[in-house]
C-alpha cells in the first residue's frame, strides 16, 4: 500500500472538519468523542463498526466496577523515574489531577494506569523500532489508586514525539496513555493526555479524530507553575471526567481494609 503524504492526510482532516462544521451549522449535535470511522487514521479503516451502537439500559453489573483500595498498588508505582538504578534522561515532570464523574463528584479508590514513550520518543516495546535510543533507566509504565478527593499523581519524564507509519513523515504529538475506571463499568475509558501548544496537533489524525475543538482541548494538560518544584520538576495538571450511567451515588464506605 502506498503511503499518503502529510499534505494528503491534512486535506482529509480538513475535509472532515469542514463537514463537521457544516453539520453543526445545520443543527447537528457536537461530537465530544472520537469518530470511529476516521480514514485519515489508516488503521481504523477495517477496525471500526459500520452499524450504530444499540442503545440499552445498563444491567446492574454494568453499573458497578471492579473494586480497589488505596493500598492495592504500591505508592512507588506512581513514580516512573525510580524504577531503575539510575536517573532517566529527559525533563522530569509531575502530572496530577482529579478524576470526576459527570456531576463533578470525585471518583475515589479507582485504578489509574499510564504508559508512555521515553524522552527520545521511544517505547520499550519490540514493535517500536524507530532509531531513537532506549533509556536503560526508563520503562514508562505506572499506576496508582485515586485518593479520597479523586486525585491521582505521577512523577515521570516528559515523553518525546515519535514517528509512525500512518503516512509519510507522520509524527505523533507527545502524549501519555491513560487508562481509567469509573464508579461503573459504563464509565471505563482509555485515552491519551497531550501537552499544551504542541505544533503537531493539526497534523495528527488520532487527535483530530475528535471533531470538536472544545472536546480535543479536554485532552490537553495545563502547565501549572504552582506544581513545578524548584531545581527538580515541571508540573502539569489534567482533570478527567468519566460520564456514563452509574448507580445512585452514596457517601463512600471508607477504606475497607
Amino acid at each position, binding site marked *: 500500500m502506498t503511503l499518503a503524504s502529510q499534505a494528503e492526510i491534512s486535506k482529509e482532516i480538513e475535509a472532515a472538519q469542514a463537514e463537521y462544521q457544516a453539520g453543526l451549522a445545520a443543527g447537528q449535535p457536537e461530537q*465530544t*468523542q*472520537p469518530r470511529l470511522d476516521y480514514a485519515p487514521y489508516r488503521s481504523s479503516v477495517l477496525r471500526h463498526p459500520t452499524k450504530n*451502537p444499540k442503545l*440499552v439500559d445498563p444491567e446492574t453489573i454494568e453499573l458497578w466496577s471492579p*473494586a480497589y483500595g488505596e493500598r492495592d498498588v504500591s505508592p512507588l508505582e506512581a513514580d516512573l523515574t525510580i524504577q531503575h538504578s539510575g536517573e532517566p534522561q529527559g525533563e522530569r515532570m509531575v502530572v496530577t489531577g482529579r478524576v470526576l464523574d459527570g456531576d463533578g463528584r470525585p471518583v475515589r479508590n479507582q485504578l489509574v494506569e499510564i504508559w508512555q514513550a521515553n524522552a527520545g520518543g521511544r517505547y520499550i516495546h519490540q514493535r*517500536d523500532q524507530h532509531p531513537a535510543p532506549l533509556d536503560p533507566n526508563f520503562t514508562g509504565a505506572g499506576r496508582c489508586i485515586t485518593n479520597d478527593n479523586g486525585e491521582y499523581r505521577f512523577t515521570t519524564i516528559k515523553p518525546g514525539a515519535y514517528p509512525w507509519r500512518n503516512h509519510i513523515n507522520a509524527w505523533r504529538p507527545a502524549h501519555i496513555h491513560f487508562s481509567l475506571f469509573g464508579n461503573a463499568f459504563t464509565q471505563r475509558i*482509555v485515552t*491519551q493526555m497531550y501537552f499544551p501548544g504542541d505544533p503537531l496537533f493539526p497534523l495528527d489524525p488520532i487527535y483530530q479524530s475528535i471533531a470538536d475543538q472544545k472536546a480535543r482541548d479536554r485532552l490537553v494538560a495545563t502547565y501549572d507553575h504552582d506544581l513545578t518544584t524548584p531545581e527538580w520538576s515541571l508540573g502539569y495538571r489534567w482533570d478527567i471526567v468519566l460520564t456514563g450511567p452509574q448507580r445512585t451515588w452514596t457517601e463512600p464506605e471508607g477504606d475497607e481494609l
Partner: protein
Amino acid sequence: MSKLVGTPGQTVGPFFHYGMPFLGGPQIAEPHSPGAIVLTGRVLDGEGQPIPDAMVEIWQRDADGSIPRARSVLRRENQMFSNPVHRESHGFTGFGRAATDDHGVYRFWTVNPGAGDDGSAPFFAAIVFARGLLNKLHTRIYLPENADALGADPLLSVLTDDERATMVATRDERGWLHHDIRLQGDGETVFLAFN
C-alpha cells in the same frame, strides 16, 4: 443528566503491552479449579483477519449472581521493579484483562456468571480496545443456556437473529465458551451505548 462533558477516549495504540497487561489478568478463576471454565475467541477485522493487538476486558457477576467486591491487589515480588506486576486477590474479583495473541485470540479462565435476583439472562460485560480502534467498544457475551431468560432479555429480544448470534457464546463439550468479536463486516458484533 450529566453536568460535565466526558473526557474523550483515544485509541489504546500499538504499545500497550508493557503498560496494561499484568500477570494473572486473564485468570479470574484458578485454571482447572472446580467450576472454572475458559472463555475464548478471536477479535477480527472487517476482512475477517485476526487482530493481534487488541485487548479484551470482562466484568461479571460471581457464579452465585453476586456483584464481586473482592479487590485486585497489583504488586511486584519483593517490590522489585525488575519483577512483573501480578495480581493477588482474595476472593472473586469478577474482572479480567487479556491482550490478544498473534492469532487474534483472547482467553480467560473464569466461572459462569450467575443470574441476578430478577432471573435475567447472565452475561459477561465486555469492552474491546485495539490499535486502529479510536475508542472503546462495549458489548455483552451471554451464556447460551436458558432460552427463556435469553428470550425475555430486554436487549436480545429486540435484536434480529443474526444480531443476537453475535452476543451469545457457544459452549463446547468441556463446558468452555467460545465467542468471536467482529469489529466490522459480516457478522459484525452488536456494540452498545448506554442510556
